[in-house]
């Protein structure tokens, strides 16, 4: 992963929910800041409070915050080569900023910000989250303040939604239907073409609501040019040579399916797949054929083994033979249980190997990450 991060300016971590996108993005950012130098920013969508703490922050918001160098020192990196910054995406605030930047005048700006539909669309409209994440990424990258930006993607219903969000936003605001919809508020003249639409829409939603929508979009249309151009620029950024995608997955069947789908989607759109990272993978030795024999022996003849072990020279103090037998039986059975999962993971891995090269594997962690040292430890799996 090191050469990849050294060569790119934007790294987008994506994958299905619960696979560890946020942690992976943060770990990569910490490694880049420690080893590559420059200003590194990680933008996260929804960090666990403990991740904020791990970065040495009480909390972080829409404004970028630097992780103090002392935290690197405490993590055993006396002199990180670069700076690590973090920001969290606040959807509502980001939308407000966008409106402020594009509204033609103060009156329109205030009218939009006060519109009840606006509040609803920006908070509830799922696509608006996807869009604003990409928009903010574009904004920060264009500012030139950072050498490397890592972002984890919002939990979308469909992993590729956010890729299409800028395009869809542009389509949405240039839609013919939108123009139809805004006609009555402008002139109150129904064209022949729009009539059937109104007949249906009126009966379903009521004229007043349509009017509310129309008013909102009339306001929004004053920002149309700026907005559509912006959405196109965001799309260009995604396909820029300096941008790469890192797909994070576990070896559970559902995330693997989504990863395969996502790898295809990236290739269809000619977007750069930088790496596939497998997270929470059980160690290989769980699948070792010889270990199986040992495990079977332990679970089928624990009493015999316990007797031999307790009777061995110097082993008297180990415990009562029946208790030792129970321990051995548990050890054997537990191993065989995990082996079932490890075998299933092996199959999923082989399936995945057919569509993409796995670049890095992070082993199943038996503890949570609570500090920068933990993030760097996880990151070291990605670095090798």
């Amino acid at each position, binding site marked *: 992963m090191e050469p990849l991060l050294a060569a790119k300016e934007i790294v987008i971590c994506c994958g299905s*929910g*619960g696979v560890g996108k946020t942690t992976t993005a943060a770990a990569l950012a910490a490694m880049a800041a420690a080893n590559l130098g420059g200003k590194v920013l990680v933008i996260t969508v929804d960090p*666990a409070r403990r991740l904020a703490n791990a970065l040495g922050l009480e909390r972080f918001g829409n404004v970028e915050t630097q992780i103090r160098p002392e935290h690197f020192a405490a993590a055993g990196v006396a002199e990180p080569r670069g700076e690590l910054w973090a920001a969290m995406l606040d959807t509502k605030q980001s939308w407000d900023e966008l409106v402020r930047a594009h509204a033609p005048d103060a009156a329109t700006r205030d009218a939009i910000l006060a519109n009840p*539909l606006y509040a*609803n669309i920006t908070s*509830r*409209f799922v696509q608006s989250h996807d869009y604003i994440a990409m928009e903010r990424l574009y904004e920060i990258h264009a500012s030139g303040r950072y050498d490397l930006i890592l972002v984890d993607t919002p*939990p979308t*219903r469909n992993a590729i939604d956010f890729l299409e969000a800028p395009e869809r936003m542009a389509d*949405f605001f240039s839609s013919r*239907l939108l123009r139809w*919809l805004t006609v009555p508020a402008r002139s109150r003249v129904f064209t022949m073409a729009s009539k059937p*639409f109104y007949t*249906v829409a009126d*009966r379903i*939603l*009521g*004229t*007043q*609501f349509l009017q*509310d*929508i129309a008013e909102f*979009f009339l306001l929004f249309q004053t920002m149309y040019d700026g907005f559509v151009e912006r959405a196109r620029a965001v799309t260009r950024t995604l396909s820029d040579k300096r941008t790469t995608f890192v797909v994070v997955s*576990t070896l*559970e*069947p*559902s*995330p693997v399916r989504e990863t395969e789908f996502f790898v295809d989607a990236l290739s269809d759109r000619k977007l750069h797949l930088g790496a596939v990272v497998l997270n929470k993978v059980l160690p290989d*030795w*769980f699948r*070792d054929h*010889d*270990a199986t*024999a*040992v*495990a079977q*022996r*332990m679970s089928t003849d624990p009493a*015999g*083994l316990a007797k*031999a*072990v307790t009777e*061995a020279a110097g*082993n008297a103090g180990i*415990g009562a033979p029946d208790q*030792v037998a129970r*321990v*051995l039986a*548990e*050890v054997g059975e*537990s*191993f065989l249980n*995990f082996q*079932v*999962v490890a075998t*299933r993971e092996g199959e999923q891995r082989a399936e995945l190997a057919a569509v993409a090269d796995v670049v890095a594997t992070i082993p*199943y962690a*038996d*503890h*949570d990450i609570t500090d920068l040292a933990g993030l760097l430890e996880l990151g070291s799996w990605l670095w090798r």
Partner: protein
Amino acid sequence: MASPVDLLDRRLLFVTGKGGVGKTSIAAALGSLAASQGRRTLLCEVDTKGDIAGAFETAPTEFREREVAHGLWAMTMDTEASLKEYLGLQLKLPLLARLGPLARTFDFVANAAPGVKEILTVGKLCYEVRERHYDLVVADAPASGHIVGQLAAPEAINDLVKVGLVRDQTGWMLDILGEAPTTGVVVVATPEEMPVNETLELTVRLQAETVVDLAAVVVNRVLPELFTRGEEKIFRELRRPDRTDALAAAVGVPGPRGGPGRASVEPLLDGAELAVKLRRTRAEHLGALREGLPPGTQLLYVPELFQRSHGVRATRQIAEALGAELGY
């Protein structure tokens, strides 16, 4: 606080949770369990991911429900089809069939007017409940990030849309959603940091922003306790190099790391060590979950099943575990 009501005696259950916790498996198992109890059950996949079909090893599910097991029907939500069905039922609009660009028009309105897609989803589910086509409707609902928006949609529409057909429909939907013994949310979590946090945040938001009752929290993938305290002491003893050697000699099978020496049994001890540590970390998160939930919340535990696959057999095993938890 709702009166204690048997989970499966409810009429409509929304199963949600953070991505990756096994939400679909739990929804499928609840449906399967209800059907095996003789309840006519509909299982609805709200996000088209195809995992319900996988849970029963059937062909992909569609909007038109299909019996996937005895007494259990499964469908996939399709808001456009839901609108068409609704319009066909409610509006006698023969003209509609000839309205070519309906799909595009609908898509546009649904995108422009937040809550329309959501209400068509919730509406279809509530409709099945109201018409009593089924004893129980189980929705494999969106993940915790989106479920509140979905369940709050009828109220949002109520606020935004003052007249019209959609508005007319929100009243009875809210009645069904808000009636505690009828409808409930089942939140699925694993005993891990993020899922536990999301679950706790969700229960607060559900109460603050929706009318829907929290029916139960399912804790999935609970690891068994490997050792008692005394046994763990013995396990520690066995990790002493000389004792590990004695164990390896007793086993007498050449292990993976060559030779019959201690290397042959070390992976097994490492494996047990991992299981013990995982169990300990998870127990902490489980404690945080128990503490953070509203008092009296029904908690159901499903053990880690170490399954080979995610098909019919796994669904049955989870259903059995849930059944045991519910006292069947």
